């Protein structure tokens, strides 16, 4: 390239010379005329281009031309001389340099061969020039000092040692008379060493051999000592599974620079990383519990193993023992309590609690024992099966052997057992005494009977202990069938390790396996573990070691911390009430109430997902069968026919042990009233089949709804009204049946059908009643204190009766129930329908209230905390619970000037209910707000079963009459001997504060805004004189076709009453 460029230069120059010759005159004449110069330059360039294009083809001619220009110096010098002095800018200066050289060249003529290139030409010129210029007498020219290569090598070899790269014989590397020992051949595991070139290695060996002590660098095998990995002190004996050079945690990945998607921001990735965990599992072996190739014996063996494991687990838990100890503790406590039976309320109550607990624990105890026994039984049965099978088939393929050992029981234990028996008897006695004291002990009567029952079927403690071992000799393989040989589960290596660790350990010690072989690394680990087992190696795996040892407090304590809980709730934004408040610094400053309330509200709002019982508990079969068994036995014992059959108290089963499909509802229709008979005169369409009995038709109308809350009811027995369609075509009621009661009842009884039904659940489920712990209120006002005392004393008297004095409102503030009661005007539409019939209006309103959907209480009704919404809220949300319905209905009734109260009680249909009681001139009416039905007090078909508590806007009354069925109750709540009242008559501040809401909707066609405003003003709602009145306003415009609008204005005024 250089060459050709040079040539180009030359050519350029040459052509320029030519052009210079042509244009020389012009230039001389018009030195200032730049245009011309430019033009000529352009021409020059054109020419130059042409030359360049032809350059490739004309290489030879170029050379010739070169020569021509070098040779005839005179010509050139002339030309150059002219050209040199021409002012031509940069081009000129360039070529000027060349021409200078050339001029020098000219003065020292030299021969050029044809193939001489220009570069050489120039250099030679320079050299010659120097030699000529520098004075020869100052310098002496000498040839460079040079030694012949061989000479040099020879000299170097004297000083430099170059080890040969030929292989070295083993004899030289090893001590005399020693054969190289190659460990790998002897079966040791040798890890692969780093790769080294053989020649390099040989060189190294040769070098080492020349050094003193050099032999110490060689191993027994004759190789240089080396570590498998040069950066580790020792190599780990686990197989290096990850061939990748990098720790996977440190793996990097090249990511392109990308624009972040703003929606899915990078933060997501960081979060994702935090969530990523890895759990490494080392599966040593597999033991099949079942396999299609198992033979019968193996299947049985697997089952036996399972049962045995289950038994051992239970043995470890030892629930019966725990329960037994609990029983003893309870017994002692009961003894203590019954000794000082100076009937104070408190001891009585605790005693009662003890009895209840004893019976409960006893039940559990028996249950656990029963389970143990059935397990033992099935173990022995399976073992017998295995034995008979082995005999039958003539060989044994499993090494299982089961032995039963008789365990001697401690005398002390036996004594205790007897004492326990005694104890239950004494208990019965005391109960008998207590029973006389009044009907408050009635709940205990069934307890006593139950205890009797359990005593009879007392189970003796387990004295047999099964022992499983794998000592049976297997039949020799050759004697077995072919199939068996393939599938010998115990023959799989690895499994025996788990079965007898101690033997394995001994074996490993005897055999002396290579500890370095990664094949045995698991085994070695195990052996190491066994060695250290006596020491302090924990049996469990922990992610963060020594964490527990250094913990300040336990996890539970931390979870319990109320302050932390509150802080977290606040952080999660769930603590709306307390959001702006300062968190108390200490736990003791935080009332428990906050959490309970919080929990309640959350429960109320969030629907609790229901868990199937079978998800929780698995083994329930024995229980069912046990109860059935006792039932069968009882049946045998009882007399064949009784004139008056009695309902028996059945065994109870804990609700937790029951799963889907286990519970049967037994319904027995005892008798029916007023069944309509098919009217044969009515001829109907021929398509219908009337061959069915009339009863089967009616059956369609019976709906029995049972909810989980109904567990409270042990059994349902009573008379139900059958919901029949208002018009039942084709059926008539026979008048003869209805007449005796018709006048007595007074209602439209004729059209009602009643069924007397006994329904219960099989198996009987024991339900848990809990005594709510009454908490101390943080800000105890006088009223709340009073309410709490009231509630406590009421419950002490009648634990089964409901009493509610305070509830939480929607904001979570505890208030008296009386605050909910305030006259409320019903919707105007309802009032307009029956303007003159007040009774019909009341029915209509009751019907209206019953149409509001009911939310079931998801809460445990016994925990003593209720949340009630105000009536306004109830009606605006169009949803409410039973109590809210009753309050709403009561408030509507109050509007009509009726004396209305809310009744809390229990109904055989709905469980805990709230009814509305209205006082008529001579009688009391009970309204069911959920159905809108009205019952007289002495109505035998009223579903209300108990009347426990009454309240209105001024007071709360608790029923302290002996009998609390509605028919027997005296509703005159002014009598203090019948009704215990919360607030004394002259109590101040009961009407502490209430909000009176008045308001109404206005409906009008839309004409203009002014007319609507006028209409609102005309109501005069704004002209209230209360000082702190608040107003509420809502407007709704309903569009109709053709721009016709219907305007609804809702107005309300809220006045705070002091």
């Amino acid at each position: 390239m250089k060459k050709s460029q040079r040539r180009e230069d030359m050519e350029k120059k040459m052509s320029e010379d030519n052009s210079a010759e042509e244009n020389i005159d012009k230039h001389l004449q018009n030195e200032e005329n730049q245009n011309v110069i430019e033009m000529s330059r352009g021409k020059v360039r054109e020419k130059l281009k042409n030359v360049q294009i032809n350059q490739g083809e004309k290489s030879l001619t170029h050379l010739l031309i070169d020569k021509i220009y070098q040779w005839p110096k005179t010509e050139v010098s002339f030309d150059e001389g002219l050209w040199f002095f021409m002012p031509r800018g940069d081009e000129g200066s360039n070529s000027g340099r060349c021409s200078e050289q050339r001029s020098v060249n000219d003065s020292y003529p030299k021969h050029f061969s044809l193939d001489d290139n220009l570069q050489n030409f120039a250099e030679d010129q320079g050299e010659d020039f120097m030699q000529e210029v520098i004075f020869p007498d100052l310098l002496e020219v000498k040839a460079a000092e040079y030694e012949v290569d061989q000479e040099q090598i020879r000299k170097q070899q004297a000083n430099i040692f170059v080890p040969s790269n030929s292989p070295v014989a083993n004899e030289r590397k090893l001590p005399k008379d020693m054969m190289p020992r190659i460990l790998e051949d002897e079966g040791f595991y040798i890890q692969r060493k780093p790769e080294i070139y053989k020649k390099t290695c040989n060189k190294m060996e040769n070098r080492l051999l020349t050094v003193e002590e050099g032999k110490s660098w060689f191993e027994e095998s004759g190789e240089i000592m080396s570590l498998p990995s040069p950066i580790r002190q020792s190599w780990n004996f686990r197989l290096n599974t990850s061939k990748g050079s990098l720790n996977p945690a440190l793996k990097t990945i090249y990511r392109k620079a990308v624009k972040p998607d703003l929606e899915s921001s990078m933060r997501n990735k960081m979060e994702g990383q935090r969530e990523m965990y890895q759990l490494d599992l080392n599966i040593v072996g597999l033991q099949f519990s079942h396999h299609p190739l198992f033979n019968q014996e193996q299947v049985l063996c697997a089952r036996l193993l399972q049962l045995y494991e289950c038994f051992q687990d239970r043995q470890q838990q030892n629930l019966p023992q725990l329960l037994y100890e609990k029983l003893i503790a309870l017994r002692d406590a009961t003894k203590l309590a019954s000794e000082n039976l100076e009937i104070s309320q408190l001891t009585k109550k605790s005693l009662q609690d003890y009895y209840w607990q004893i019976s409960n624990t006893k039940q559990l105890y028996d249950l656990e024992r029963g389970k143990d026994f059935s397990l033992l039984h099935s173990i022995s049965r399976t073992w017998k099966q295995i034995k008979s099978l082995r005999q039958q088939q003539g060989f044994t393929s499993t090494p299982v052997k089961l032995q039963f050992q008789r365990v001697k029981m401690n005398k002390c234990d036996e004594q205790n057992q007897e004492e326990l028996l005694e104890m239950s008897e004494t208990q019965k006695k005391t109960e008998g005494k207590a029973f006389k004291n009044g009907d408050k002990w009635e709940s205990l009567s069934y307890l006593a009977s139950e205890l009797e029952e359990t005593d009879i079927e007392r189970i003796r403690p387990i004295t047999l202990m099964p022992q499983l071992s794998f000592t049976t000799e297997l039949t020799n393989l050759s004697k077995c069938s072919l199939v068996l040989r393939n599938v010998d589960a115990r023959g799989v290596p690895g499994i025996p390790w788990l079965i007898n660790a101690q033997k394995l350990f001994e074996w490993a010690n005897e055999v002396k396996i290579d500890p370095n072989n990664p094949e045995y690394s698991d085994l070695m680990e195990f052996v190491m573990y066994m060695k250290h087992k006596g020491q302090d190696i924990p049996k469990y795996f922990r992610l963060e070691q020594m964490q527990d040892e250094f913990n300040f407090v336990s996890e539970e304590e931390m979870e319990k911390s109320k302050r932390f809980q509150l802080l977290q709730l606040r952080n999660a934004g769930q603590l709306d009430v307390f959001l702006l408040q300062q968190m108390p610094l200490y736990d003791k400053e935080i009332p428990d109430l906050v959490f309970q309330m919080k929990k309640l509200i959350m429960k109320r709002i969030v629907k609790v997902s229901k868990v199937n019982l079978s998800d929780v508990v698995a083994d329930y079969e024995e229980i069912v069968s046990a109860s059935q068994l006792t039932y069968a036995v009882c049946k045998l014992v009882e007399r064949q026919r009784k004139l008056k059959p009695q309902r028996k108290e059945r065994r109870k089963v804990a609700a937790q042990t029951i799963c889907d499909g286990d519970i049967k509802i037994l319904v027995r229709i005892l008798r029916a009233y007023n069944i309509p008979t098919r009217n044969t005169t009515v001829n109907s369409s021929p398509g219908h089949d009337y061959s069915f009995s009339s009863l089967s038709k009616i059956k369609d109308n019976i709906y029995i709804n049972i909810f989980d809350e109904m567990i409270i009811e042990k059994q349902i027995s009573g008379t139900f009204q059958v919901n029949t369609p208002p018009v039942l075509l084709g059926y008539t009621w026979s008048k003869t049946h209805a007449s005796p009661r018709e006048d007595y009842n007074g209602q439209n009884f004729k059209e009602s059908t009643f069924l007397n039904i006994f329904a219960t659940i099989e198996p009987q489920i024991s339900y848990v009643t809990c005594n709510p712990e009454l908490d101390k209120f943080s800000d105890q006002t006088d009223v709340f204190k009073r309410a709490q005392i009231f509630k406590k004393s009421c419950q002490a008297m009648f634990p089964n009766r409901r009493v509610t004095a305070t509830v939480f409102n929607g904001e979570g503030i505890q208030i008296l129930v009386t605050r909910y009661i305030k006259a409320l005007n019903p919707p105007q539409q309802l009032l307009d329908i029956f303007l003159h019939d007040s009774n019909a209006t009341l029915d209509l309103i009751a019907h209206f209230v019953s149409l509001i959907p009911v939310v079931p209480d998801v809460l445990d009704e016994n925990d003593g905390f209720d949340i009630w919404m105000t009536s306004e809220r109830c009606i605006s949300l169009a949803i409410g619970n039973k109590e809210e319905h009753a309050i709403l209905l009561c408030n509507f009734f109050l509007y009509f000037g009726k004396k209305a109260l809310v009744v809390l009680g229990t109904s055989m249909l709905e469980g805990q209910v709230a009814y509305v009681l209205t006082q008529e001139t001579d009688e009391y009416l009970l309204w069911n707000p959920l159905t809108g039905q009205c019952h007289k007090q002495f109505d035998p078909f009223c579903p209300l079963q108990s009347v426990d508590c009454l309240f209105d806007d001024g007071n709360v009354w608790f029923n302290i009459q002996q009998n609390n069925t509605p028919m027997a109750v005296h509703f005159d709540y002014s009598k203090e001997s019948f009704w215990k009242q919360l607030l004394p008559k002259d109590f101040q501040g009961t009407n502490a504060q209430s909000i009176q809401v008045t308001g109404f909707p206005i409906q009008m066609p839309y004409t203009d805004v002014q007319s609507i405003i006028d209409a609102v003003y005309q109501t005069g709602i704004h002209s209230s004189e209360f000082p702190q009145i608040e107003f509420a306003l809502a407007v709704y415009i309903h569009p109709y076709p053709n721009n016709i609008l219907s305007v609804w204005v809702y107005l309300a005024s809220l006045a705070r009453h002091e």
Partner: protein
Amino acid sequence: MAEVHVIGQIMGATGFSESSLFCKWGIHTGAAWKLLSGIREGQTQVDTPQVGDMAYWSHPIDLHFATKGLQGWPRLHLQVWSQDSFGRCQLAGYGFCHVPSSPGTHQLDCPTWRPLGSWREQLARAFVGGGPQLLHGDAIYSGADRYRLHTAAGGTVHLELGLLLRHFDRYGVEC
């Protein structure tokens, strides 16, 4: 049940060759720790310094922990990213420092590093951006064997953290 408040800010970063920087941060704690309030991780804005070479983020950190042990003291891990003129983001450095264990205000300087990658990756990074990143971000704060990782130094992130400790003296930890 000792408590720790970590209150402060990520001031900014210096010494990065890239100009438009932002920072992703997070606080990692052991199992004994429980976050009572505050946000555990976040990301700052992209700061392009106009004067000087320090990128200021002034990103607030406000956390409240409860702990039942000293193990797993909170560790702050940082990722500094740079945004180029096309709006593309690439990693500029990983950093880690423990939250100080004494109460008071602390000025922290957290040096950063980034994986170097193979020469191809380095070349690609120099010309087209992007770069090698850790597959698992927890290597930033965990003591995994890092010896085979080749890294290049990034700049320094400056933090100012204030600490309030409570009830440590109850468990014999003086501070």
